[in-house]
């Protein structure tokens, strides 16, 4: 921002962030290096992590079973640290489609998907995902048949959710990497399904 040469005064929240950070460093509660390392760690969390988990579950039945029983433990087995909060993985089937929302704020499986998209935090999505999920999914381009049941998961407390999508037909014999490449963030939030096009 500063390297553009155009001086812009700090916004209210930027000023709050700088003031708070400098105060915490000055008081010796955290160091600048710790803050930088944490920011870097957050940047490194991307939906590729979640996609790896999904692809592994598609290939390895035992892993899939464990993932559905205890998402946190299964991710740890892959070397993915899922700190503090518990991961609940919900599986799409021909009969049930799952989608995730946090109606109260913007709880999101950041450890596997990174920073949530703006629409996930919007009042529009948060209020309508529980009230009219079918209409919301249609707006995302996902028209579900009437006979498919929708389960909306509202992340109101200490759990975080990840949707395990169905593996599309036509992916037989694919490697884990290739499978992971079709698992997008939206598939794991449940507003899309993996496609081969």
């Amino acid at each position, binding site marked *: 921002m500063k390297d553009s040469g155009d001086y812009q005064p700090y916004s209210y929240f930027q000023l709050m962030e700088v003031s708070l950070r400098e105060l915490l460093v000055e008081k010796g509660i955290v160091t600048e290096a710790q803050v930088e390392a944490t920011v870097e760690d957050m940047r490194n969390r991307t939906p590729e992590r979640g996609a790896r988990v999904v692809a592994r579950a598609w290939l390895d039945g035992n892993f899939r079973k464990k993932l559905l029983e205890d998402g946190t433990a299964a991710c740890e087995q892959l070397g993915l640290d899922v700190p503090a909060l518990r991961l609940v993985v919900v599986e799409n089937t021909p009969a049930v489609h799952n989608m995730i929302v946090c109606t109260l704020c913007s709880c999101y499986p950041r450890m596997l998907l990174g920073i949530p998209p703006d629409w996930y935090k919007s009042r529009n999505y948060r209020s309508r995902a529980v009230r009219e999920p079918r209409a919301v999914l249609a707006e995302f381009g996902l028209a579900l048949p009437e006979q498919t*049941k*929708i389960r909306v998961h509202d992340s109101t407390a200490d759990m975080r959710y990840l949707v395990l999508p169905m593996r599309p037909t036509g992916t037989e014999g694919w490697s884990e990497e290739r499978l992971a490449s079709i698992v997008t963030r939206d598939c794991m939030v449940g507003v899309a399904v993996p496609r081969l096009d």
Partner: protein
Amino acid sequence: MVEARFKPGDRVRVRKVYPLGHIRTPYYVRGHSGVIERICGAFGNPEELAQQRSGEPKQPLYRVRFLQKDVWPGYVGNAGDAVEVEIFQHWLE
């Protein structure tokens, strides 16, 4: 830790009360009935934690499944469409 009073499959109702403070029970399920989907464990009470208190004793946390048609008047969709919400034990009866 407070002992769990409900088990998966139990029918429960969310208390229809409107206290002030940091409440993690959404308005839209208050007063509605659903079924315990699973016990998530026991966690610090967020209403206490938000007041800088200890959150102890930890409260059992459940995932409760509500049928959409029970929650929203005039809901359009499959009769089996559901919404699942995490709710602390002291909100359930």
